[in-house]
């Protein structure tokens, strides 16, 4: 019913595991698939007490996608005061758009003692203006990581590496003009979450558009991407392969890749009933690891 108002009550993810963050997101995708003509939607977060990047960034991307399709969405803020403030600080749902907001650098640096980067919604166009904005943004993010997170230089390099490689993948392969990023550091337990998402053509779509028609499904596509098969059939294609290795093997963390209906997690590829409309990469890494040498993984 297009004129009905849909009140979607989101529940607190059942645990803080990285995968748990996706369960509520997948339920939301199920709603979108089942109600393609829904126009008035309330994103009801009143029961949410704590959010992590994978959950809240995926929600922001779906929010934006539905608005683009002409739906009208309202956020019902969390009852929990801390969570309510956090969502404001991270600029949920629109994020900071460095090509649109003139004082984006001030906004990014607004809370120098906080342990997160707000949601950043960056342009992926290949023209010089967008490229310059994006490079400036990534430089600024590297400086913030350096100054705010108090981690060793080898780990700073690893974080910069993970962000830049996945950003590059979005630019080169997503076929869409926006990418999304969020980072959260957990200083007491020394973990760091990095999440990058696009609502583009998926990894499978990118292989197909580059003439690799022998790859026929999302599961094969993400497996090929994780092995390092380049769409250009050359020695590119290292971004996802090395990012997985750095996150899981080097920094003893987790790595999620969700593209179309295939999801890589814990070295398994699961074929889900619901498709992510693009590609989602979520990484949870340890920020204190002995004897970590990034160059062993590149």
């Amino acid at each position, binding site marked *: 019913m297009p004129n009905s108002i849909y009140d979607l009550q989101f529940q607190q993810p059942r645990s803080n*595991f990285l995968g748990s963050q996706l369960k509520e997101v997948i339920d939301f995708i199920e709603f979108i698939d089942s109600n393609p003509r829904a126009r008035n939607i309330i994103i009801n977060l009143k029961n949410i007490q704590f959010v992590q990047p994978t959950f809240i960034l995926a929600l922001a991307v779906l929010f934006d996608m539905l608005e683009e399709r002409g739906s009208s969405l309202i956020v019902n803020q969390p009852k929990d005061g801390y969570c309510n403030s956090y969502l404001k600080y991270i600029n949920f749902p629109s994020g900071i758009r460095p090509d649109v907001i003139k004082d984006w650098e001030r906004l990014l640096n607004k809370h120098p003692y906080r342990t997160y980067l707000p949601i950043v919604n960056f342009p992926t166009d290949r023209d*010089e203006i967008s490229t310059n904005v994006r490079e400036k943004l990534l430089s600024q993010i590297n400086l913030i990581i350096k100054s705010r997170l108090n981690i060793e230089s080898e780990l700073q390099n690893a974080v910069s590496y993970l962000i830049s490689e996945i950003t590059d993948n979005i630019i080169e392969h997503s076929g869409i003009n926006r990418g999304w990023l969020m980072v959260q550091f957990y200083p007491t337990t020394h973990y760091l979450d990095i999440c990058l998402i696009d609502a583009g053509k998926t990894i499978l779509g990118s292989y197909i558009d580059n003439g690799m028609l022998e790859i026929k499904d999302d599961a094969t596509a993400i497996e090929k991407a994780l092995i390092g098969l380049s769409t250009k059939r050359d020695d590119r294609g*290292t971004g996802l392969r090395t990012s997985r290795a750095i996150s899981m093997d080097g920094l003893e963390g987790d790595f999620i890749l969700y593209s179309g209906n295939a999801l890589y997690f814990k070295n398994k590829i699961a074929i889900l009933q619901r498709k992510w409309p693009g590609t989602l990469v979520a990484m949870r890494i340890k920020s204190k690891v002995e004897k970590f040498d990034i160059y062993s993984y590149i």
Partner: protein
Amino acid sequence: MKEQRLILSEKFNNSISTRIAVENLLKNIKTDELIIDFSDISFISSSAAHQMVIEIRLLEQRNINVKCENMNPDVSRMIELSKTDRKNLFTTIPSIKHSIINSNLDLSRLFLEGIQPD
């Protein structure tokens, strides 16, 4: 002989992150000798380093002599790695198991694994 000096920090602040940035930077170079000055560049991504190697090869094919100067050790190492075969044995993925998730219960089981940050 015409010489051009490209000071990267004037364009990039402290880091170079994406392929397209390198491609845009070097695609319209018209000189006999190009000096790329890496002073104050503390980070280059693997993709950007790989693109730098590709673009320098293309410039050299056009008979442009290219010199790189003032690279810090991290940047230099990334550029050198980009010149080699990029299929690093240590990042080979172990064999992946495939499964089909048909129910919410299967989905919950899949997601209830992993590391909790707090």
